[in-house]
């Protein structure tokens, strides 16, 4: 019996979220007294795979097949389900990112396994198996019992600490046979920006709202982001107005993020906006209106005009960094 963790790779590399998954899975396996198996699909070097061992994996299965040429959720589901059955997995864990969200529900049906989506903590109980998750867009939480013998969980990004150990894992390479009829997605075009810090991966996010007044006022905000190594984001009206690209829109209908630090500048803090950012560990709000709801969600606040305050923050950060 085992806990099976699926880790995605990005051009042969893992990310912090991969190690969060293994850390989480290892702790859960400890609670259950089970072995930790990590499954990677696609070509990844052994030196990269070994990193997973440090976070507690007992065994790593590196599965590949040269005919896999794009992400197809049905195909990936069948591969993961195959290993889950072979290894007697009691819990299968994926990330709650785009890929995990695409696969986990399919896996749930395939394995007749109840799904706990977007969990941020270890189960609060294992018999019965109870997970804790956000509902009503962060306005409440639920304790959800999973009643099936097998369980599928997706872990919210940036919600679990990395736990490094002395452990190392064995690596098994497997050339998996695949059923071609399961592979029906055909990619005809890819548009990818490289080099930018991804909003969903960022530890710090600097975000602007309608209080920024115009798309032309973004320079100091971008400078703050640059100085902090942060990603940039915005509220929905800002992307609707075309002041900033749609990819930056956070909130219920945009991206849901959980950075360590979120700057909300000229953002009122509507529930739909908070739905996307309320899991941030710290929120800093800058707003002219001292009664803006964003201040109830923030730990630090400045009541003031962004146009005047931001240049001063840039200055202070430059001094702090000695630049």
């Amino acid at each position, binding site marked *: 019996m085992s806990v099976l963790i699926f880790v995605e790779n990005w051009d042969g590399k893992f990310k912090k979220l991969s190690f969060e998954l293994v850390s989480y899975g290892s702790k859960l396996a400890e609670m259950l007294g089970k072995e930790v198996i990590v499954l990677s699909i696609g070509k990844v070097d052994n030196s990269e795979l070994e990193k997973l061992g440090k976070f507690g994996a007992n065994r790593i299965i590196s599965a590949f097949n040269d005919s896999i040429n794009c992400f197809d959720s049905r195909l990936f589901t069948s591969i993961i389900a195959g290993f889950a059955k072979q290894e007697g997995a009691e819990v299968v864990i994926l990330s709650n990112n785009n890929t995990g969200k695409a696969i986990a529900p399919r896996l749930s049906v395939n394995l007749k396994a109840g799904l706990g989506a977007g969990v941020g903590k270890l189960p609060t109980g294992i018999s019965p198996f109870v997970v804790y998750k956000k509902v009503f867009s962060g306005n409440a939480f639920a*304790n959800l019992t999973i009643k099936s013998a097998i369980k599928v969980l997706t872990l919210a990004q940036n919600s679990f600490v990395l736990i490094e150990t002395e452990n190392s894992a064995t690596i098994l390479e497997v050339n998996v046979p695949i059923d071609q009829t399961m592979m029906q997605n055909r990619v005809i075009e890819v548009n990818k920006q490289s080099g930018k810090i991804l909003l969903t991966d960022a530890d710090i996010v600097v975000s602007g709202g309608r209080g920024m007044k115009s798309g032309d006022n973004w320079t100091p905000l971008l400078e703050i982001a640059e100085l902090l190594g942060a990603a940039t984001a915005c509220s929905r009206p800002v992307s609707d107005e075309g002041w900033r690209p749609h990819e930056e829109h956070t909130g219920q209908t945009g991206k849901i993020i959980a950075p360590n630090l979120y700057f909300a500048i000229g953002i009122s803090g509507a529930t739909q906006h908070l739905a996307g950012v309320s899991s941030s560990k710290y929120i800093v709000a800058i707003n002219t209106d001292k009664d803006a709801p964003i201040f109830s969600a923030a730990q630090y606040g400045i009541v003031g005009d962004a146009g005047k305050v931001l240049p001063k923050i840039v200055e202070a950060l430059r001094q702090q960094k000695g630049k």
Partner: protein
Amino acid sequence: MKILVCISNVPDTTTKVKFVDSLRKLDTQGIQWVINPWDELSLTRALELKDDPLNQVQSVTVAHVGLVGAEPTIRKALAIGADDAIRINAEPTDAYFVAAQLARVIQENSYNLILCGIESSDYNGSMVGGMVAEFCEYPSISSVSAVKIENGQFIFTREIDGGKEVVTIPAPVVAIIQKGIAKEPRIAAMRGIMMARSKPLKVVEPSVAEPLTEIVAFELPKPRAACKFVDPENPAQLINLLQNEAKII
């Protein structure tokens, strides 16, 4: 070409959620129920596709798993422009149960494109779409921000980390949609509201399926500590707090 839009019925997004029965049940008193925002956008896009005769979309159907109380929401979808509706008459206990019901209806009626939202704004499951696809043994595509039809073929744009991918998938296919699919939700016009009353709303009884999960108790978020205010003339103090108190920069 037939399109199915799966709609869930959720409290209006500005609802202040409260619970009763020792935090075990949602307090439904005074709640305004609406079409899940994503599903409203899916429906809008489906109707846009139908508007263009080149696409040869014959019908846009909406399906909902829920009790009779959800009918005003279904009628609203009909008023916006859906041709007909199917309600599977059962309490939507969990995503697995809901998906099993939808899958049966889909297999009986064979749609070319099935649209589901990325998540319901109430239980934030992000589950039903993928589950429906697996039950039906159809391909699926997630994080879809655009869909069009070219020469009878579906062309999807999906969001990937740091960019976008354009993908084709043969029908029947389940698309799980997110931001971008349509600009603004289409609004019901007076004529639509009148017509909705006479559009077919078929009620079917559920098949046997067992929920795999159950919510045992809710919790409300703990109040955050009061916000610490910094003098706007002296933001260096903020940097200092972030560095030395919160220790996050």
